[in-house]
């Protein structure tokens, strides 16, 4: 069985075979939960996934290169630091302008995310979403006003949806239950 082979390779530290798709899937499931905080985290993950340490690092390098991993590092919970005001600003932008406006908004330092999404008429006319975070609501409002002014977006219908409570704030779980 492949898994057993992989475990043997992990045990000997050898990495002559490419890891199985199954082992890579296990690794991804483990990575979604974060690195173990030990001196050699990749080795620990390798043991758990049934791979060799250098195979784990090679996988991570590959996923970084192909964009599967967007970033690797400390995932901060902003609210715990006091960054309490989390505003989702939604815009109704004519389709022919949406990419241009999206790119310009994304360049603003205060804007942390900027996505185009579909309208759902009649309930939801907004097709561009961006996030603005700050310690206080007034700061978010001031930032937004400055952005609207600077980019000349005053003619675009938009709304600010402040968050009032976080029921959950965590990373995605994409790997099937029981995979890890």
């Amino acid at each position, binding site marked *: 069985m492949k898994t057993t082979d992989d475990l043997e390779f992990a045990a000997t530290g050898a990495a002559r075979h490419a890891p199985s798709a199954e082992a890579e899937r296990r690794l991804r499931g483990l990575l979604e939960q974060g690195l173990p905080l030990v001196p050699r985290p990749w080795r620990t993950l390798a043991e758990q996934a049934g791979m060799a340490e250098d195979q784990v690092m090679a996988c991570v390098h590959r996923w970084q290169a192909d964009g599967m991993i967007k970033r690797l590092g400390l995932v901060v919970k902003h609210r*715990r630091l006091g960054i309490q005001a989390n505003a989702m600003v939604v815009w109704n932008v004519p389709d022919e302008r949406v990419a241009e406006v999206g790119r310009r908004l994304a360049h603003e330092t205060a804007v942390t995310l900027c996505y185009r999404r579909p309208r759902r008429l009649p309930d939801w006319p907004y097709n561009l979403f961006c996030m603005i975070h700050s310690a206080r609501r007034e700061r978010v409002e001031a930032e937004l006003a400055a952005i609207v002014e600077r980019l000349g977006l005053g003619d675009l219908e938009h709304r600010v949806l402040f968050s009032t409570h976080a029921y959950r704030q965590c990373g995605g779980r994409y790997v099937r239950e029981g995979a890890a």
Partner: protein
Amino acid sequence: MHCQAPNSQAPTHQARKLDALDRRLIDSYQRGLPVCSRPFHTIAERLGSSEDEVISRLERLQEMGVLSRVGPVFDHARAGASLLAAVAVPEAERDAFAELINAAPGVNHNYAREHDFNLWFVMTAPDEPELDARLDALEARLGVPILRLPMLEGYHIDLSFPIPWAELERA
């Protein structure tokens, strides 16, 4: 388990409890964690600290809830399927609806927001059919239509965020 509802009783202004080394870790390593056999040793060398110290700082930051984890942020579109979803529920029953949403598999980032659509969450799944199935099942449980807003185009891929330490000191 890493994924829990944030405890609203917990202190939120943790910034003042973080010293210069904590802040440098956060400022320098929201991205670019070294992929080498002893990454915390490499970080320690760069920050003029020790491997043990870096590990214990990271453990403490996780315990404080300042970090949800140290690890990769996967691209939703490539790592599986996900979409932003919203429901409009009676404000008085919002907590109960939020609990039902949190109980569904694949849900993260569930927030109350100031709008008729007052609960906003991200649904994730291994693939599109499973995503639809999860949303359909949840919709049936909630008894209200779910607004489904998949990402069509991303203009900003950098999720790391400069922490305004000075402003947080004043807050």
